[in-house]
């Protein structure tokens, strides 16, 4: 049960292919191409699941493979295309991080994944370790794609490739219970996200699906806006510390007292009580 044996090499091959496709997703600029790459990844995932089923003699994995294929390689890509058509998003994806830069970050992330998995030896078989490293990389790359792309479609795709990584890991572990249920549930989640793009009618409500646009609709307004009108400097209506400092002079004499001190007769009292000549300068004999 080690390397050099065909079945495992093929398993690794498929895993590697998924990782490669994640990089492709990260690399693509055009929405259509992204969707295609994602469909291919779904297909590869289905293959991997089926192969694992064959290897582990676990028939339920065939079911997983079937679901994965139908949903991720066929239906969801179709749905995404439909969205793209409805919102005619035939422009290229705006990236928050340059393609080259994101590729580099991706490589770094993969390296990190390997580093993390490396010390794991005892108990787990080397085989599972390799699978784990691959799956982990796919997951991280999917997340990386979500944060380096600006528009909702590619973020959704990123989430789904992340989820592909999950399923890859799940099927990779021999005898993982509930694997079908879990993968299905994860799929449902993804489908919900896709549905979200539809249901929330993002296209119709905002002129772009750039998620930044969503930020404008918040009861509290934006930070810049608040800072601009210096809102919160006066915010706790009755006195921030600043307000308290403002009445710091009041410290001396409470409200009325303070006013009294300025009333002419009070002033006169003060001077008289002290003797006039003393008021201008320090008192005593002139």
């Amino acid at each position: 049960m080690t390397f050099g044996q065909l079945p495992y090499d093929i398993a690794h091959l498929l895993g590697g292919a998924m990782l490669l496709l994640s990089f492709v997703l990260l690399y693509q600029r055009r929405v259509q191409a992204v969707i295609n790459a994602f469909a291919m990844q779904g297909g590869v995932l289905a293959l991997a699941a089926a192969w694992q089923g064959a290897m582990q003699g676990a028939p339920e994995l065939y079911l997983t493979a079937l679901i994965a294929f139908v949903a991720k390689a066929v239906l969801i890509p179709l749905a995404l295309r439909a969205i793209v058509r409805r919102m005619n998003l035939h422009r290229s994806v705006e990236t928050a991080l340059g393609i080259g830069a994101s590729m580099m970050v991706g490589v770094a992330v993969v390296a990190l994944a390997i580093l993390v998995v490396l010390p794991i030896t005892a108990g787990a078989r080397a085989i599972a370790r390799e699978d784990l490293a691959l799956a982990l990389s796919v997951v991280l790359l999917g997340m990386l794609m979500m944060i380096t792309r600006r528009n909702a479609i590619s973020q959704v795709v990123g989430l789904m490739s992340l989820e592909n990584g999950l399923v890859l890991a799940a099927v990779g572990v021999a005898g993982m219970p509930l694997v079908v249920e879990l993968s299905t549930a994860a799929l449902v989640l993804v489908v919900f996200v896709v549905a979200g793009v539809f249901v929330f009618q993002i296209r119709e409500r905002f002129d772009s699906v750039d998620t930044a646009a969503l930020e404008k609709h918040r009861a509290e307004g934006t930070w810049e806006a608040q800072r601009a009108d210096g809102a919160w400097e006066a915010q706790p209506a009755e006195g921030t510390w600043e307000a308290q400092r403002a009445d710091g002079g009041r410290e001396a004499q409470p409200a009325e007292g303070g006013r009294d001190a300025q009333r002419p007769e009070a002033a006169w009292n003060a001077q008289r009580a002290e003797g006039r000549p003393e008021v201008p300068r320090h008192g005593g004999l002139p």
Partner: protein
Amino acid sequence: MQTLGGILTQALHLALMLVLAPLVPGLVRWLKARMQGRRGASPLQPLRDMRKLLRKRPVLAENASAVSEVAPYVAVVATLVALAQVPSFSHGMLLAPLGDLLLVAGLLALARVALALAGLDVGTQFGGMGAAREMSFAAFAEPTLLVAVLTFAILAGTTNLDAVAATFRDGQLGLRVSLALAGLSLLAVALAENARMPVDSPGTHLELTMVHEAMLLESSGRHLALWEFQAALKLELWLALLAAMFLPFGAAPGGAGPLAWALGLLAWLVKMAGLMLALAVFENAIAKMRVFRVPEFLGAALLLALLAAALLFVSTGLA
């Protein structure tokens, strides 16, 4: 015998004080006049003034309250009781166990508060000015007094007036720098407390700078007489206090016989005379200072007293 002696000495002491009280300011005034080359009023002048005032009909302002009438009695009584504890010619008087430096300070404060309230009672600006200044000066005089008392307490181990005086008289303490410093500070306090020259001018009635007189402007008749008497008592008390503390020699020990009393009386009179002379000289030598320099004057005294205590700590390896 002891108690009988105590009672007798106490009675004699009180009588002596009451009789001599009016003479003290008169004598000082007279001495000052002499030194200035004037003939000056007779030393008995204050006594005459008081008798005359007592005979006059006192007039109170329309809006004067009971405070104006009661305050002078309170002040006189407080000062008198304080004075009754200061040993003059003999120790071991009846009130000796009661006699306590802190209590004296407290009684003087009582008299001061009575005076200030009387000054505020009618609500005239001079009374207010005087009261405010009197109380403010006290804020500097009292700590000085207390720190000087600390010096005595360290040397004598107690604040009981009689015990302190007795300790000093026995004189195994010898001469101490710290005692001298404490003495100086106490002198300054005495001047301020009695509204004497550098702080206040007892002779003049220059309205704008006076402290003590300003509070009495509305009082007349027997009230004024009582106030004058209280001032005299206070001056006498301070002189006697200084004498008992710093010139302790000669006083008769507790339970001594009449002969020792006579000697002590003689010694005491000499001491008082000397102190009055010193006061007269000092008052002639120095000029009145501006009101708001008084804190600096008393602050310096306070520092002197603290210095005395500190010196005591470091010099003698106490405790």
